[in-house]
């Protein structure tokens, strides 16, 4: 027995020496690969598969093919949630626009204004739960600053978070706050490495203000546009914390989004198959966007 073991070890040793260059990186890579495969890759596959079953957490899973998806498209809450995700995607470009504006303003500011960029960035490092509480207080019908200001101006009282039309927009406004901060910091970094000679040349040619911004500055910022666009799209689709904190999808599911509806169906109603189907739709949406960005990135590389 012992002899066999020794022979195996002796037999392995030349293999180890011969293939050391390929075994060592695999060993270094192994913990990360195992964790990533177990907690990211496998769950994606398992969720996609689960979306074809009916399952309530206990007992056997029943295969129902595309039944969950058929039910989804007839489900009014799903349709609202899907529509709200699209509204979110449509409004998210406001974040890069405002972020770029603030960055342009801060880029030429004096060194004394450095504190300003830190303070502008502050919302991004705060938890979205805190941001949700901050904005719930801001939009509060009786206590909120919004209504206090409106009352001073003689305007009507508004309760955006209690309105079936307004709730989703109030949540998106809250989301634009940290997202604008993120875009600002990326654009500031991009502006700091512009080639000043190009702007000088454009000025010599008689270009001014807007023309310089459109034809000289914006094109040079394209990698920043790219990063900002990808992160904004993904964060718009991921939106969960703010909905959970500010409205819980209400009133009457009018501000529900796919991420929150999936949570409700899975962990409150225990309809796991159905929830997996919602997650699969969300995943497909995100995958389309991300692969578009990755494709552009790889193409730019060539």
């Amino acid at each position: 027995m012992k002899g066999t073991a020794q022979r195996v070890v002796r037999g392995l040793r030349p293999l180890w020496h011969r293939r050391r260059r390929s075994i060592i990186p695999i060993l270094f890579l192994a913990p990360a690969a195992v964790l990533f495969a177990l907690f990211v890759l496998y769950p994606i596959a398992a969720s996609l598969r689960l979306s074809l079953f009916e399952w309530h957490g206990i007992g056997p899973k029943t295969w129902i093919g595309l039944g969950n998806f058929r039910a989804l498209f007839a489900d009014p809450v799903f349709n609202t949630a899907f529509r709200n995700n699209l509204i979110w995607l449509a409004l998210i470009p406001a974040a890069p626009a405002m972020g770029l504006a603030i960055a342009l303003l801060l880029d030429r500011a004096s060194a004394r204004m450095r504190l300003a960029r830190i303070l502008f960035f502050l919302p991004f490092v705060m938890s979205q739960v805190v941001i949700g509480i901050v904005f719930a207080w801001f939009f509060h019908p009786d206590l909120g600053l919004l209504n206090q200001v409106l009352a001073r101006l003689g305007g009507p009282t508004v309760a955006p978070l209690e309105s079936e039309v307004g709730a989703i927009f109030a949540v998106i406004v809250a989301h634009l706050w940290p997202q604008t901060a993120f875009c600002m910091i990326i654009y500031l970094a991009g502006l700091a490495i512009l080639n000043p000679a190009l702007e000088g040349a454009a000025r010599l040619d008689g270009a001014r203000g807007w023309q310089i911004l459109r034809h000289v500055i914006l094109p040079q910022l394209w990698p920043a546009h790219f990063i900002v666009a990808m992160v904004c799209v993904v964060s718009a689709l991921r939106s969960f914390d703010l909905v959970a904190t500010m409205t819980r999808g209400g009133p009457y599911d009018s501000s529900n989004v796919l991420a929150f509806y999936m949570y409700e169906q899975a962990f409150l109603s225990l309809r796991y198959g159905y929830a997996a189907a919602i997650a699969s739709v969300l995943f497909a949406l995100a995958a389309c966007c991300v692969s578009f960005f990755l494709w552009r990135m790889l193409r730019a590389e060539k």
Partner: protein
Amino acid sequence: MLRFVFSLADAASGEMKEAPAARRRPRAHVLRNLVIIVLLSLWLVPLLGVALTSMRSIEDLHRGNYWGWPSDIFILQNYWQVLFSAGMGRFIVNSLIIAVPAVLGTLVVATMAGFALAAFRFRGNLIILALAIGGNLVPFQILAIPVRSMIDGFGLYDTRAGLILFHTAFQTGFATLFMRNFIRQLPVDVIDAARVEGIPEHQILIYVILPMIRPALAAVAVLVFTFIWNDFFWSLILTYSSDVRPVTVGVLSLRGMWLTSWHLLAAAAMLAALPPALLFFLMQRHFIAGLTLGLSSD
């Protein structure tokens, strides 16, 4: 792309350039500063409101003073009550117990993997990178049900260890990408020289690479700490008892308790926001370098 992002990170973390145009036209300069100050005040109004409310007495709220200056400063009373009577102290400790080991675990695993991807050439390198980026961008919901079953299967449901394990695994993708990009920028001849000397690879990693990648470790650490501290979704679905729940879920459970005690809720929210904000103030350079670099690939 990569070169751009690196210079982006340098620019963001380094000294900002002085504006020549501004120096030439002092009046425009003053105007610009004025606009910045006005905008910044508007920008921070929602936050200032909550900060002020966290210092109010309940009488102030009853009197209808919601946004004005507090008539009595109640900082100590409110924060003391929130920290010790309402259990925010325990939530904060839980968040630390979860975030610190998860950050350390991520650093160890990602440094090894980043080193392997940067210092060795082997097939599939590009696919691994694409997976790491893509994996970091997926919506959490597609992972939720299987991850919860798995954590439950390991006997880690409703434990801090379960959250530590999951966060380490999830943050590894981003962190690996970052470490790999950073290690690739190091001078190659140092690694080659060490190899010629016959130093084993793990010693090269510890004695040659590690001292050179401290800035990268700092960047990953502050960013991953902030992500984990601010996590809400995973804490919500992987824990349920307030003995193990972290601060984000904790604040929300307090809200259910204090429907009208806005001053206490505000104090709790400020406490939850404080650690990442402090970390950002102290380590801005690393924070921003992490943010710009981590999004790169090549």
